[in-house]
């Protein structure tokens, strides 16, 4: 029973981290029509960068700020790259997929060549403190993820609902042409969307990095978990990402705890297929919502 409680708690916390990955994916997708296969690699980049920095003796927070700077530069560049195709080729999905896959390959292998292929455990200021649960101990890192993800989601809610840029992003996700006609600077907002996804990615990276193994090759698995979480919630509903992320986190940790690591790796892909068969629109979809053909 204690075991079950333990897996549930850490699954819930890791799931909140996945929710952040999914949030980056779904906001970019809704705003610009680009489904980003490189989101997991942005998360990886932040986690690995901070891990390398802290191992070399730097501080966790200064590493975090540097990671924000690195990812900011990368996402502005990516945003500028994707502006024209996103406007001109919203229907040419195969090219957009291949383009972001290319970005993912570049990020993963640049990180591998520049930052090294070692595996790290990211140590945060609260790693040493833990809660005892009979024979198990749960590091404060897990609760930090829960807290930070909650705060970020709240901030995102305010930003998306109450600010002008948030309103414009929502307008863009509803109908690009109508948004353009109402004076939304679509090109500028595309870059904003990428930057937003990048920043959320950094937070996801420095948080998840404290509880998962960090390496240059972790990106793909994170992307898949993020997709799975976003699809459970429905790609059109950013808040559904929370529910989806928690479901994925729990399922993965139960699989890892009661079966083995192979089962853990297979969970997210299997959930993706199950969702496609049973609920192609996600669980929060209203009646008659059609799958979006971008």
């Amino acid at each position, binding site marked *: 029973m204690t075991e079950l409680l333990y897996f549930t708690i850490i699954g819930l916390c890791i799931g909140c981290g996945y929710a952040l990955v999914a949030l980056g994916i779904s906001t970019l*997708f809704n705003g610009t029509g680009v*489904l980003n*296969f490189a989101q997991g690699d942005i998360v990886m980049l932040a986690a690995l960068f901070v891990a390398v920095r802290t191992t070399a003796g730097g501080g966790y927070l200064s590493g975090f700020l540097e990671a924000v700077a690195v990812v900011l530069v990368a996402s502005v560049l990516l945003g500028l*790259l*994707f502006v*024209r*195709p996103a406007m001109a*080729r919203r229907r*040419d*999905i*195969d*090219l*957009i*997929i*291949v*383009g*972001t*896959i*290319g*970005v*993912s*390959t*570049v*990020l*993963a*292998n*640049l990180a591998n*060549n520049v930052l090294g292929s070692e595996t790290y455990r990211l140590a945060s200021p609260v790693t040493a403190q833990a809660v005892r649960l009979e024979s198990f101990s749960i590091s404060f890192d897990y609760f930090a993820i829960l807290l930070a993800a909650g705060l970020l989601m709240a901030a995102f809610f305010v930003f998306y609902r109450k600010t002008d840029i948030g309103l414009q992003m929502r307008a863009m996700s509803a109908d690009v042409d109508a948004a353009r006609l109402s004076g939304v600077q679509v090109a500028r907002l595309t870059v904003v969307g990428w930057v937003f996804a990048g920043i959320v990615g950094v937070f996801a990276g420095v948080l998840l990095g404290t509880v998962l193994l960090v390496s240059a090759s972790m990106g*793909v*698995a994170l*992307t*898949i978990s993020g*997709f*799975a979480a976003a*699809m459970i919630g429905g790609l059109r509903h950013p808040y559904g990402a929370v529910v989806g992320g928690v479901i994925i986190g729990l399922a993965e940790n139960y699989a890892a705890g009661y079966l083995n690591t*192979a089962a853990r*790796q*297979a969970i*997210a*892909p*299997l959930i*993706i*297929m199950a969702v*496609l*068969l049973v609920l*192609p629109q996600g669980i929060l979809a209203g009646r008659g919502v059609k*799958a979006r*053909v*971008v």
Partner: protein
Amino acid sequence: MAAARGAARATRQGVHLGEAAAIAAGAVALAAVLGPHEAQIAAMTAIFALAGVGLNILVGYTGLVSLGHVVFFAIGAYGWARLTESGSPALAVLVPILVSLVVAALIVLVTLRVVGYYFGITTLAIGLLSVVVVQNATPLTGGYAGISGIQQIAVPGFAGPGQVLVMSGLVLAVAYYLQSSLRESPLGAAMLATRFDVPASQSLGLSVAWIRLLAFMISSVPVTIAGAFLAQLVHYIGPDQMSLETSIRLIAIAIIGGRGWRWAPVLGAVVVVTLPELLRPLAEYRLVFYGVALAFVALFMPRGLSQLVTWVGGRIHALRGSTG
């Protein structure tokens, strides 16, 4: 009118047949003159070009991006490795092809109701699953250790990698010709119609589901055979060759070559496989190189190398016109 069209089609078929013969002859000639190391690189290129034919048909004719084709590559490679021990070479290729066709049909059944991006996500999920299976189904795949000591088909008169080069070159030539024939056939036309306009093609009475099913099954066959040849070439199959990176490399060949163009698999394989092998400085950053190439082509050169070739051809034509 119809007769003229038929005649033009026959001429094109003749041209394609000639090109296929040239590919086969080129492979045999290369195998005869190259040293073992160069033959290894050439064979690797032919193998990936063969697999690229499958992806080119899928992406180029139906517009579906698959990131999961490594599963067919793995079926072909492990099937060959396991079945040559027990029986005939023909069986070791045909059984994996049958398995691939069944798996392809199942994948299409899962993704039948899916549009656009979801197909990419699902195939990526399938690719990841196949990697997990390869790493953990130890009795079947040898797990992380892989399988070594794999035999190859003997071709009299050639040695080592040259034998694989000759065999894969001949199969590539056949696949190349069939790819062109498919493009000319009613089925190929139907695939193209569904790629560009689903509602219109449905109103013409085409079944998108059936076309998708056929396209996916057809595309799995060359990839499976390529997997078997790879196992023969390096005499070893392990999880490092069957990673998602292989999936991405296959799609990169079709996209960089120019999706749907008949030369895309061959030229794409030269860029993605041969160039990094020949340019040592590239080897270190090989994956970065083709990631950049992939993103660049996707964003700025949607028709890949075919765009380049058409442009150069146009320039030459213009120059000839101005002098003559």
